């Protein structure tokens, strides 16, 4: 069951290719925020996003929040001696002058305690908290379960 507020947030979706827009806070550029569709809400969802630090000072992503997940967390998939696990990451470094990607097989937002099924074509907001730059809320585009990332070349941005 969706709250009216959540329904309103989810409906910010009619916009095509949400994941191809760029958002900025301070010297940080946020792009390509996407997630995969889920079957129901019992399994965790995922959040991927790219952050470019155009400034001269290091920053770090220290937290994520979203109305679609009761317990969102930063994780990092690591493959050690042929075994994959995904420990919690206290923060994701965003060094000066670099682009950091939360991307398949590495850092990701782990959306535990989903409050709704994530449906392909819909979207949801996520608030990223940076150590120095502060908070920014960006829309996340839900792609198919088979997606490996947004296809921004063909999005006519």
């Amino acid at each position: 069951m969706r709250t009216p507020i959540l329904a309103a947030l989810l409906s910010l979706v009619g916009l095509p290719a949400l994941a191809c827009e760029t958002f900025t806070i301070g010297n940080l550029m946020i792009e390509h925020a996407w997630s995969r569709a889920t079957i129901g809400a019992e399994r965790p969802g995922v959040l991927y996003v790219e952050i470019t630090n155009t400034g001269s000072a290091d920053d770090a992503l220290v937290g994520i929040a979203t109305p679609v997940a009761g317990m969102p967390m930063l994780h990092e998939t690591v493959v050690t001696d042929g075994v994959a696990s995904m420990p919690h990451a206290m923060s994701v470094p965003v060094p000066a002058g670099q682009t950091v990607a939360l991307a398949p097989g590495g850092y990701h937002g782990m959306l535990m305690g989903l409050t709704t099924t994530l449906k392909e074509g819909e979207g949801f907001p996520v608030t990223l908290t940076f150590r120095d730059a502060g908070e920014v809320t960006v829309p996340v585009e839900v792609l198919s379960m088979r997606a490996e990332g947004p296809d921004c070349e063909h999005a006519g941005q």
Partner: protein
Amino acid sequence: MRLTTFQKALWAAAGLACLAYGTWVLVADPATPPRAEAAFRPVFSLPDAEGRIRTEADFAGKHLLMFFGFTSCPDVCPTTLSEVAQVMDDLGSDADKVQPIFISVDPVRDRRLGLAAYTSAFHPAILGLAGDEVQTRAAAESFHIYFERQDDPAAPDGYTMSHSPALYLIGPDGDWLRQFAYGTPASDILNDLRSRL
């Protein structure tokens, strides 16, 4: 710190396994699959979604593309299953010569959540198998792969799984052919398969 704990757990698990089974290869080595005098022929015997026991013998004559994982895994497992799905699409008329199989290392929860709905969301050809603890452990040992339950208070049901994330290719006569390391592009897997079909 967490790595140290994990490594300790690995060693503890390794010790127990060695005591229990004599020889148990903890983790498959990508470059050198285990070799014996005879060909290496990993086996499994696990129920599908309808409860029918499926074994490697059911698929004699086909190449098997095998993956061990769990469905509450939002990062590693969808990536690999997406690649498998892409390979199956791109195989075209040769797709019926390849059977992709997903073996759950979290079988009780995956049966509850629905394994077939999950695998078919990636590709209808992918067969999901989920047995009991003994059947699952036996299959993993036969493939020389590692998996372990890890307590995590933040995770759903209080735990998550670590596991070998590679894809394994078994030939039409049941021989181990090779593994594809996690992250191998679908096009590389496709080219390898095409050269064998």
